[in-house]
């Protein structure tokens, strides 16, 4: 017990003033999340713009919250949205039900459905939080073309799904 003991506690408070501030300045400086953070979904495209989704509904079956609704339809030679037989005519994710568990991503056989790092989803209407295909589809990058259009990268869907749109000799 020394005479200084009663004021020692103030020293802790005083010292804290020179410590690094832990607060994140969120809206002004956004810190990056983990690379594999489960954020909003995205429906990917092949390099020529055709959709990777084949409308198989495996994501909807895997979803524990029943947040995904898919309606498949047949591709025709006049209107082709994805290589292969089928594509998703209707694709909806209800973000008021989705728990971002990622089971849909694991279920997807074509890596069509993946997740982004985007998380600012709050909205004031329930209807706007049911994302449709137009909200979920990845933007068209350079060299991509808005479907429907014929297959540009190969004759069959094997050229797309097995060789990822590259020529046969390069892929093997």
């Amino acid at each position: 017990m020394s005479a200084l003991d009663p004021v020692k506690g103030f020293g802790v408070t005083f010292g804290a003033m020179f410590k690094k501030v832990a607060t994140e300045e969120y809206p002004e400086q956004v810190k990056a999340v983990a690379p594999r953070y489960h954020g909003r979904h995205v429906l990917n495209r092949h390099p020529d713009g055709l959709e990777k989704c084949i409308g198989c509904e495996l994501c909807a079956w895997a979803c524990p919250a029943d947040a995904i609704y898919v309606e498949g339809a047949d591709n025709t030679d006049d209107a082709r949205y994805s290589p292969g037989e089928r594509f998703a005519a209707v694709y909806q994710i209800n973000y008021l039900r989705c728990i971002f568990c990622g089971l849909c991503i694991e279920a997807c056989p074509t890596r069509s459905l993946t997740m982004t790092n985007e998380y600012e989803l709050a909205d004031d209407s329930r209807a706007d939080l049911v994302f449709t295909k137009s909200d979920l589809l990845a933007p068209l990058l350079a060299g991509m073309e808005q479907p429907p259009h014929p297959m540009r990268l190969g004759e069959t869907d094997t050229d797309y799904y097995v060789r990822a749109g590259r020529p046969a000799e390069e892929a093997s």
Partner: protein
Amino acid sequence: MGLEEKLPSGIVLTSVEKVVNWSRKSSLWPATFGLACCAIEMMASGGPRYDLGRFGMEVFRPSPRQADLMIVAGRVSQKMAPVVRQIYDQMPEPKWVIAMGVCASSGGMFNNYAIVQGVDHIVPVDMYLPGCPPRPEMLMDAILKLHDKIMDEPLGANAKRRELPGYAPRELVASSQRFTKEGKKAHRQALVKELMR
């Protein structure tokens, strides 16, 4: 609400409305009200790392009488529903509600007889926040979007302004865009334009 709602339109100008709304949104006190795992994230938002105090709302009021904002954090069971409603009724006007997390917003993955399928069956919800649970940034994003909504709220006779042709409520912008230099500038310009009208 109160007296300010009864004033004739000549007295309450748009600028007064903005000042009132600004003071309301700048000290939005939430009620201490957590129901499930979302409440843990809500508590984290109040802590030093995310610090809701930066938005004038670090004091989670233990009594609904002193609160303006109810953050329904978690799943609401049928048994809890009357309690939620009573807490809402005890809060003084003006009051706002955030449905935090998918359970409060729509029932989430608990699509069964025990859980209320969306808290908007019981109380009017101003902001739905998806996520299971939403990270503190998502909650702050929802709160900041709600701030913008509060700034747009009409006062008294000004409510008629909303019925005029060409009126459109301001669009909600993701906070990471809204609070960049350009986003702030665009917001300021929109505000000046509105005041000049």
